């Protein structure tokens, strides 16, 4: 059987061993390139993919993030060949949409024996609550269709898998095109390639048209499961490119059978949902009741015709490979056409003839559980004799539970190996879109190298080695690398009226501001103590200052009371400090919060801001390997710089909208609290002395130079407080924070819950100024007045801190959460309940 099989198709080399015409330019280019140049290009592309361009990978999407590498050598396909593939995909998409409409509608295909009932009724992706839910006028059930294709030894393309749930693809293809354009620009010089960008315009037009049938100025959201999903980077990118709002389930609510986006300005109607959450997670009321990713009432809103959800939940029911043998008949029945682009030979074993065929020629196939299309296939060839017997027994007992798929020797494509080019097997992911009744296929794709059969149906989430796919243009298009394809566009054609700020986004920005600032103050405190410990021997003043800093670190919650009470010159103390700043310490928790918020806000942050945040975490990776005080100090220095870089970008690059305002609120509140904590702890500590306290306070508040300039003296007196607390020109001073908050509140006019807070801030400002009014300019007097004022000052600071805390609470709880009280209790607050038959009291 096997020895008579044809050799795998080679994309670049014909059967006669010559390079195919459409590959000649490319191969000449590659062969002319010294191996080290090729390696360097390859390394740069990999770096782009893993690093700067793919921010999420480093931003800690965690184990869920696929591990990718990219081959700069694209797969090249002639335009006419592609057009044939695209036509086949369009026909298949039309067919699948009609089948879906029938499955969720009259089900005459089942009654007419064109679809076996088992493949629908036992299919876990058949979502019964969606039955009879008809898309709004003009919208299809299937809107976005991806397919995995392979090329057979005879050169024919075949479908390996239909992807109809919520498939990925366009974002990846754009990214790969961008990377190849940057790292291998000369490759575009001799070849004219069809651009990918137009698919985004088609996509926008299509979404707009569907939305326009529902309301005159439609709002479109991309519903994402959130940052923990492996495809989240693509969601961020597509929302940006399509000019639509990225939303998680918790950003949405349903009122009166209408889906709304929760924003600071109230509820904003949503007309179209581009769904990237799996169908059964979309609505805890009617589908999986344990889902926190959807929105309760979405199906009811669909039923009322008030929202189009694309693809409709339940669309995954036709992803089944076992449907393949029935598609030719369905194409004839529904389209009156022959199926142009069939799947590789596939048998559902639930029919006698199919089972007989599979049992008779078992080694031609791999087998899969019928409803687990992404399971690793069972390869009969690899089975032991007993396992094979066992498989045959299972097949005979429950044949309907298996699908057999023909083993295919995937076509080969030239790929850059270790400095050389070699043919490797691949599959290709295509993306097609519904637009006003017609299907458009993106003129390009993503190819994945599949060494061995294991990649046959591998999902994108598994990662792997990928390639860009080029479709040759019939005529030269514009010159230059890729005509800007894949380069992120910041302005796309749809320019919306003032973008509404989502409530969750505002909340996340607020907390990002607080955590960034908190991280900054912690790092400065750790740095101060490290600078003192690192000397050869600790002098008495170093000892005293270190002791005070230890108390402050404890006061702020960074180290334990036990650590703070250790002798600061002991190695145990130093060791504890390193641990506290390491990956298991409190500092790491704070960093993790920044990281998490940064991820959730990825779509709101510019590339540069994201990169600045990312830099904060690079250091962490080596933190636990090198426990020396010296390297820890260096890390703390870098952290201070990184936070400052982020702050600079916020100041220089963020438009002064409400988003910026909430980030600023968070920062100012946290910094104000920090100043209160520092002064309070230093004044009240066991070692408290004016000289040392003020010196440290100035250092931690980055205000030493200001003091020196203003008071040319070697002594540090309580006058330092006038700089740290009441100098409204000092961006580190308490009063500066309060005044910034006050002007921020003024700008947020109309948000009622914050009105009472204005009075609080308005009262705090004079109170802080009052503290310093008592301080004389005369250093000697100031020293004398210390005892009198110490407690007064501490009481005033306690007041200020309490006021800031209450402002934070009001902002986060009442204001940002006022639309949906559940958010603060998430996820426990959303409870489901069901009555029991008979089991009720």
């Amino acid at each position, binding site marked *: 059987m096997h020895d008579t099989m044809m050799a795998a198709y080679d994309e670049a080399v014909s059967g006669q061993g010559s390079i195919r015409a459409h590959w000649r330019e490319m191969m000449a280019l590659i062969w002319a390139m010294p191996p080290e140049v090729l390696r360097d290009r390859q390394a740069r592309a990999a770096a782009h993919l893993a690093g700067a361009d793919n921010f999420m990978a480093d931003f800690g999407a965690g184990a869920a993030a696929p591990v990718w590498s990219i081959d700069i050598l694209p797969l090249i396909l002639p335009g006419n060949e592609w057009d044939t593939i695209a036509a086949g995909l369009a026909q298949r998409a039309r067919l699948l949409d009609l089948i879906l409409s029938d499955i969720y509608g009259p*089900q005459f295909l*089942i*009654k007419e*024996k064109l679809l*076996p*009932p*088992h493949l629908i*009724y*036992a299919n876990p992706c058949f979502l*019964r*609550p969606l*039955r*009879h839910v008809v898309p709004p006028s003009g919208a299809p059930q299937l809107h976005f269709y991806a397919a995995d294709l392979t090329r057979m030894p005879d050169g024919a393309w075949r479908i390996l898998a239909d992807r109809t749930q919520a498939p990925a693809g366009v974002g990846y293809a754009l990214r790969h095109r961008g990377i190849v354009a940057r790292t291998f620009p000369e490759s575009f010089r001799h070849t004219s390639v069809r651009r990918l960008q137009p698919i985004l315009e088609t996509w926008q037009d299509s979404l707009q048209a569907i939305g326009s049938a529902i309301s005159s100025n439609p709002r479109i959201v991309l519903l994402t499961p959130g940052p923990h999903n492996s495809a989240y980077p693509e969601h961020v990118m597509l929302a940006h490119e399509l000019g639509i709002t990225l939303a998680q389930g918790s950003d949405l*609510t*349903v*009122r*009166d*059978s209408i889906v709304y986006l929760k924003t600071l300005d109230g509820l904003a109607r949503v007309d179209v949902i581009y769904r990237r959450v799996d169908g059964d997670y979309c609505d*805890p*009321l*009617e589908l999986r*009741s344990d889902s926190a990713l959807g929105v*309760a*009432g979405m199906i*009811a809103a669909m*039923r*009322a015709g008030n929202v189009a959800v694309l693809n409709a939940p339940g669309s995954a029911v036709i992803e089944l490979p076992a449907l393949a043998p029935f598609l030719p008949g369905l194409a004839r029945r529904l389209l009156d056409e022959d199926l142009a682009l069939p799947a590789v030979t596939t048998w*559902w074993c*639930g*029919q*006698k003839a199919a089972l007989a065929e599979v049992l008779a020629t078992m080694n031609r196939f791999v087998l899969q559980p019928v409803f687990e299309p992404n399971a690793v296939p069972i390869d009969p060839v690899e089975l032991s004799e007993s396992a094979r017997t066992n498989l045959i027994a299972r097949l005979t007992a429950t044949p*309907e539970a298996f699908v057999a798929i023909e083993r295919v020797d995937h076509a080969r494509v030239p790929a850059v190996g270790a400095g050389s080019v070699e043919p490797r097997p691949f599959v290709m992911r295509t993306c097609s879109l519904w637009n006003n009744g017609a299907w458009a296929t993106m003129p390009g794709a993503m190819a994945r190298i599949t060494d061995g059969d294991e990649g046959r149906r591998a999902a994108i989430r598994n990662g792997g080695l990928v390639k860009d796919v080029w479709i040759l243009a019939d005529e030269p298009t514009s010159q230059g690398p890729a005509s800007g394809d894949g380069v992120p566009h910041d302005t796309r054609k749809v320019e919306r009226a003032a973008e509404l700020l989502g409530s969750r986004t505002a909340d996340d920005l607020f907390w990002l501001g607080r955590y960034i600032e908190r991280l900054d103050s912690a790092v400065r405190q750790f740095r101060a103590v490290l600078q003192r410990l690192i000397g050869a021997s600790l002098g008495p003043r170093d000892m005293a200052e270190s002791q005070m800093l230890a108390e402050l670190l404890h006061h702020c919650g960074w180290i334990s009371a036990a650590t703070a009470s250790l002798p600061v010159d002991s190695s145990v103390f130093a060791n504890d400090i390193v641990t506290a700043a390491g990956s298991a310490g409190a500092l790491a928790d704070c960093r993790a919060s920044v990281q998490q918020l940064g991820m959730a806000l990825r779509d709101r942050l510019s590339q540069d801001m994201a990169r600045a945040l990312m830099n904060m975490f690079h250091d962490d990776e080596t933190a636990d390997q090198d426990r020396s005080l010296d390297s820890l100090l260096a890390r703390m220095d870098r952290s201070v710089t990184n936070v400052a870089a982020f702050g600079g970008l916020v100041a220089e690059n963020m438009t002064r909208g409400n988003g910026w305002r909430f980030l600023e609120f968070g920062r100012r509140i946290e910094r104000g609290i920090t100043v209160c904590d520092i002064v309070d702890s230093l004044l009240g500590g066991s070692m408290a002395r004016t000289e040392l306290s003020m010196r440290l306070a100035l250092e931690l508040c980055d205000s030493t130079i200001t003091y020196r300039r203003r008071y040319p003296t070697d002594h540090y007196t309580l006058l330092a407080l006038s700089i740290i607390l009441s100098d409204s020109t000092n961006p580190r001073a308490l009063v500066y924070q309060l005044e910034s908050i006050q002007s921020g509140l003024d700008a947020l006019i109309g948000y009622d819950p914050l009105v009472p807070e204005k009075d609080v801030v308005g009262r705090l400002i004079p109170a802080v100024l009052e503290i310093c009014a008592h301080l004389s300019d005369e250093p000697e007097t100031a020293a004398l007045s210390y005892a009198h004022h110490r407690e007064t000052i501490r009481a005033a600071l306690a007041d200020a801190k309490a006021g800031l805390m209450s402002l934070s609470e009001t902002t986060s709880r009442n204001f940002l959460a006022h639309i*949906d*009280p*559940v958010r603060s209790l998430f996820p426990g*607050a*959303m*409870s*489901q*309940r*069901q*009555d*029991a*038959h*008979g*089991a*009720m*009291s």
Partner: protein
Amino acid sequence: MTRYAVRHETHYAYGATVDLGFHMLRMTPMEGERQHLIAHQLEMLPRPLRVSAFRDHFGNGVHHVAVESPHDNFSVVLSATVDVEPPAWSEPPTGPAWEDVRESMRADGFPKPPEVAEFVEPSPLAPLDHAATDYARISFPENQPVVTGALDLMGRVHADFTYAPGATDVSTSVAEVMTSRRGVCQDFAHTMIAGLRGLGLPARYVSGYLRTGNSFRGGDASHAWVSLWCGDEVGWIELDPTNNFLVRDGHIAVAYGRDFSDVTPMRGVILGGGRHSHTVAVSVAQLAGT
């Protein structure tokens, strides 16, 4: 013909204010061949902003209810007047051999009739269970007429399982019930359905109400029983394993599904609410003169 007045009251008391409550109600008696809905009314407090009615995949009537103002309690009262006719037969036909029904469901991938095929498939609360299948098999020796076998199985379930309110809850599995041999109508129905499906016979779960009477179990709450496909000639017959009798005119059907999860009388999502308690009362009175 018998006329019934059905009243089904559900009261929820929430520990904290609920801001938004969505409920799916499947509690109104259905219109059927032998059952006629004369009058019905759903009263809810607080009054929902919107009640929309639709038919689900199984053809059951569903009310989708949204309460969008803050509330601490929620009550639903269904009242209905229903006429029920007895079946044409006084004793049921015995039907074809059970293997014939099983074979009609295989039919090389295309069962006949196709719309029945859904009920031979395992479902969340009535999955394939070897113990339940082996238990059911005893009632279906070779060539046993399908109705005869089903009556025998129902009698055995009634005899072997103890009616024990409170012993199980909505999520109790068939496997657990097969072990403990205790439960309520829902458990008996699921167990019997799982066994029948294990043999390849299509069986449905029926949710509804039962004529209240001293000798019946399950009449003080919503009730559940089994519907079995017995081939083209006999069609569906309904069996109540909790009370060990064939359904004639003492049962009022509300909804059909694969199992309880398809026909839950009241399923909801609330935002807020804290801890909650609920009470349910059902009364089914036979109206005089019928």
